[in-house]
């Protein structure tokens, strides 16, 4: 016999102002099976929870219904309350009478009636709830960090410092990421390399960290606590264990016309190269698209000059499979392609550059050795125009991104300031829509650019850039002055929007982690679980989750590491008990459920069954691994016989809710 308790929360006046809570309690008290129905100002308060606990004990309740705020808010809280009273925490249902009733309806009578109906549905469901016990599965004490930029490096260092093994998988030949390409960093103007390279070295030397550079994740299986990951180690045609990084090969290679990706193609390098001086690992690699030996079989200069015999033209990609307890995505960002912005003449004139290209043009290790020279004729630009929001906050199809890229306002202030500092005779103009500086010392930094360095900020966008006679005629608008300024510039710098690295999309599929419409990874909760992906055991670090500057990235990297450490320090993890479960008596073994399972949680076994005629028969039936199943329910609908059901959201429970609502 069911003994159900109903608790109606006032939530102060949040619910009680629109819903007649007393009437709800009174009406629901008459429902079959309900032995207690009461209301209380704040159910989630200590005294409210005590009241529920006491009622469970005193009334020997078999099920609890709480009419309150959304279960997404307090389901976990009340489950603990129920459990403290000795009742299985899954014998609880919450009727959402705040977000989905009192807050969206104005008429008191209507809202009260709806609250009663929602309460009835919860009662109907809880009557059918079964006590659920969450299973446990073991944890492999090793983490995988995908991406070796500042986010990945920091996450790996923090995890490793806590004593756990970490592998960093980086698709490029060195770790370091975008930060390694930057010149200075805002708002302190420290040199990026000076603060990054020590961390790169720390990572390389850490006994718990294993760097797999020039590698990519190819497949991910398993689940939180024991992921099985296949990693492709791309052939670099250089034996990583033998190469000393002396660099002789990179000087002797006769193929000199290779666009240098580290300098964004602003200069060239050889077909065999070490990405940059402080690369980690400091090992050469051959670009097979340019290497004469690999393309034609004739050359072999690098092999001849290498004193340790590290060159191996026959090297092949290899696959490694490893197990991990947790995975961190740190795939980062890149600037968008500006191919579609013909009005800004990017690609038409070499003197229209992106901000990242400007970083290289100002960097001592860059193509101009740190002297700011414009690419076309290697002269000092005297007038420089910065254009903000190129592709950011843009809702056009196929051109830009709808979001704010967040970092551009600050790095442009930095660029403008550095240029004015070093070349006071240069005039700098910044066309902007808004200047966004919500960070510590950020606005002060921007104001310094204006007040101390005399950078001209112009409110308005640029409409067209016309290259003519060695100048770039910039036509913009100055909305405050009501003018259409035309500036003859020597160099134009476009603050290109940033977008997630394209490798993130396929990685998300491998990880079954979800993404938003812009291909940024989504958080488990935008406010309360910002570094976890909704997929258990997968964490997010850095700009793969959204545009971020370096301090934010490092903070998030640490937060993700803390979550990973928390997970890895446990021997077992508790699984979600609301998983699919097959009724073997009814299962046809047809494999439909297996085909739609995104997690590979379903396998089949041949089992003996007693038939109605007392004979036994061998039948193929589905088996669900409860540690792998995430409880989506796709299988339950694919199953024609209804043998597959979902605990906590069973066919019968949902239909009981339907009946209660429609009656």
């Amino acid at each position, binding site marked *: 016999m069911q003994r159900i308790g109903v608790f109606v929360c006032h939530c102060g006046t949040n619910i009680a102002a629109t819903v007649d809570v007393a009437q709800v309690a009174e009406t629901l008290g008459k429902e079959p099976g309900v032995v207690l129905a009461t209301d209380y100002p704040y159910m989630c308060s200590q005294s409210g929870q005590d009241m529920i606990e006491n009622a469970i004990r005193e009334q020997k309740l078999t099920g609890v219904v709480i009419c309150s705020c959304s279960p997404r808010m307090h389901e976990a809280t009340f489950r603990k309350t129920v459990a403290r009273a000795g009742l299985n925490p899954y014998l609880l249902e919450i009727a959402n009478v705040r977000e989905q009733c009192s807050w969206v309806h104005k008429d008191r009578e209507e809202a009260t009636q709806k609250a009663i109906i929602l309460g009835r549905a919860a009662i109907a469901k809880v009557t059918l709830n079964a006590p659920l016990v969450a299973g446990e599965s073991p944890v492999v004490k090793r983490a995988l960090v995908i991406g070796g930029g500042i986010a990945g490096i920091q996450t790996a260092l923090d995890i490793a410092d806590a004593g756990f093994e970490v592998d960093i998988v980086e698709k490029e030949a060195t770790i370091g990421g975008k930060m390694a390409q930057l010149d200075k960093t805002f708002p302190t103007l420290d040199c990026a390399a000076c603060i990054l390279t020590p961390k790169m070295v720390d990572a390389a030397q850490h006994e718990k960290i294993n760097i797999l550079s020039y590698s990519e994740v190819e497949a991910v299986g398993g689940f939180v606590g024991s992921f099985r990951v296949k990693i492709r180690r791309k052939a670099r045609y250089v034996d990583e264990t033998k190469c000393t990084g002396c660099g002789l090969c990179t000087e002797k290679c006769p193929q000199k016309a290779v666009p240098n990706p580290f300098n964004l193609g602003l200069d060239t390098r050889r077909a065999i190269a070490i990405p940059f001086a402080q690369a980690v690992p400091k090992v050469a690699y051959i670009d097979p698209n340019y290497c004469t030996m690999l393309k034609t079989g004739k050359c072999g200069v690098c092999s001849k000059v290498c004193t340790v015999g590290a060159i191996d033209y026959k090297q092949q990609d290899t696959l490694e499979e490893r197990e991990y307890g947790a995975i961190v995505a740190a795939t980062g960002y890149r600037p968008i392609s500006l191919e579609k912005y013909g009005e800004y003449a990017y690609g038409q004139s070499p003197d229209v550059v992106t901000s990242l290209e400007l970083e290289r043009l100002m960097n001592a290790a860059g193509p101009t050795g740190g002297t700011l020279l414009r690419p076309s004729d290697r002269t000092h630009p005297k007038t420089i125009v910065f254009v903000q929001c190129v592709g950011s906050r843009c809702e056009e199809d196929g051109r830009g991104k709808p979001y704010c890229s967040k970092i551009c306002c600050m790095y442009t202030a930095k660029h403008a300031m550095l240029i004015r500092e070093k070349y006071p005779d240069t005039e700098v103009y910044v066309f902007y829509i808004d200047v966004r500086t919500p960070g510590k010392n950020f606005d002060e930094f921007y104001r310094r650019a204006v007040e101390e360095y005399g950078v001209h900020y112009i409110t308005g966008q640029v409409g067209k850039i016309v290259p003519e006679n060695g100048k770039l005629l910039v036509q913009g608008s100055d909305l405050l002055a009501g003018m259409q300024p035309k500036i003859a510039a020597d160099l134009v710098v476009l603050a290109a929007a940033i977008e997630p690295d394209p490798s993130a999309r396929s990685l998300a599929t491998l990880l079954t982690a979800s993404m938003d419409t812009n291909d940024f990874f989504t958080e488990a909760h935008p406010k309360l679980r910002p570094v976890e992906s909704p997929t258990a055991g997968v964490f997010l670090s850095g700009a793969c989750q959204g545009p971020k500057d370096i301090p934010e990235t490092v903070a998030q990297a640490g937060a993700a590491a803390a979550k990973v450490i928390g997970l890895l320090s446990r021997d077992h993890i508790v699984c979600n008990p609301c998983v699919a479960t097959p009724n073997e008596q009814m*299962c046809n073994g047809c494999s*439909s459920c297996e085909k739609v399972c995104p997690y590979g949680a379903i396998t089949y076994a041949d089992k003996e069954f007693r038939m109605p005629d007392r004979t036994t028969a061998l039948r193929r039936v589905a088996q669900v691994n409860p540690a792998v199943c995430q409880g989506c329910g796709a299988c339950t609908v694919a199953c*024609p*016989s*209804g*043998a597959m059901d979902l605990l906590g959201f069973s066919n019968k429970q949902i239909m009981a809710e339907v009946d209660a609502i429609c009656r």
Partner: protein
Amino acid sequence: MQVKEKAIELLSSGKVSRVLGWKQGEFCYDLTPAVFESAEEVERSFVFSPLAGANLAKYLIAESRKEGVVAAFLKPCDSYSVLQLCKEHRIRRENVYLVGVPCEGTVDPDLLRENAKGLTAVREAGGTLVCDTLYGEKRVDLSAVLLERCKVCKSKKIVVFDELLGENGEENPQSTRFAAVEEIENLTPEERYAFWQKELSRCIRCNACRNVCPACSCETCVFDNAKLGTDNKAPASRFEEQYFHIIRAFHVAGRCTDCGECSRVCPQKIPLHLLNRKFIRDMNTLYGQYQAGADEESLPPMLDFRMDDCEPSAARGGKQA
């Protein structure tokens, strides 16, 4: 007769321990599926003719789980059902020996009886049915009395077999089997509703369609599941007829080979196959051509997706009001 001789040969050589075929039923126009365990039995009562409309596939689920090998004779239609059931791991392929039999169409007994009143016996002779009737011998052209499914035959290809009697046929992409579906789609919603009310309200929930359907081979049907509260037996309200037939069609969607058995056995002559064909046609047009049972590997449309599938708002089952 080739088929019968093959059955005798298979049994007497010991190659198989049982043969699944047809025997004479209650009436001369009614051939019924039967299992034969000896050559003598076959000799005595095995019958094969264009009246052998019954699809034997479903029987193989149980038969293939018994001791020994069972042989079965498959018309092209039946072979699709068998392959589909193999794909669903329902038939144990290693325990069955499949003999393909080409088919020129099967007879609609009702049509035959209309064409030959007072029918007492019937035999086939090269495309003609020679009928003994109370009023003397009558010859009826086979093509005149075919079942609807055979008139619009989708394929004469036998897709799975261990042995073939005669030549294998071809798929027939020119089949006009969806014409009847389109006809209904072209009605107004009111007319469509009236049409289906007229048809479905005759349902007596005898479950013949379910029992004969090779795709409806669940260990327990949802409509028999008292625990779930979805069981129902007699149609007490028009809702239930729709409920049962929509869900049944939905459950077999992507698995139904369009063998037409549901309509063949319906005692109320409800054109149930049109529901299945509607699903097949929608899946073909929206998600690409798919024929259930044509192979063992392809993923049925209901268990598959494309990122750029159409939205449900695009779903139109016919003309709009």
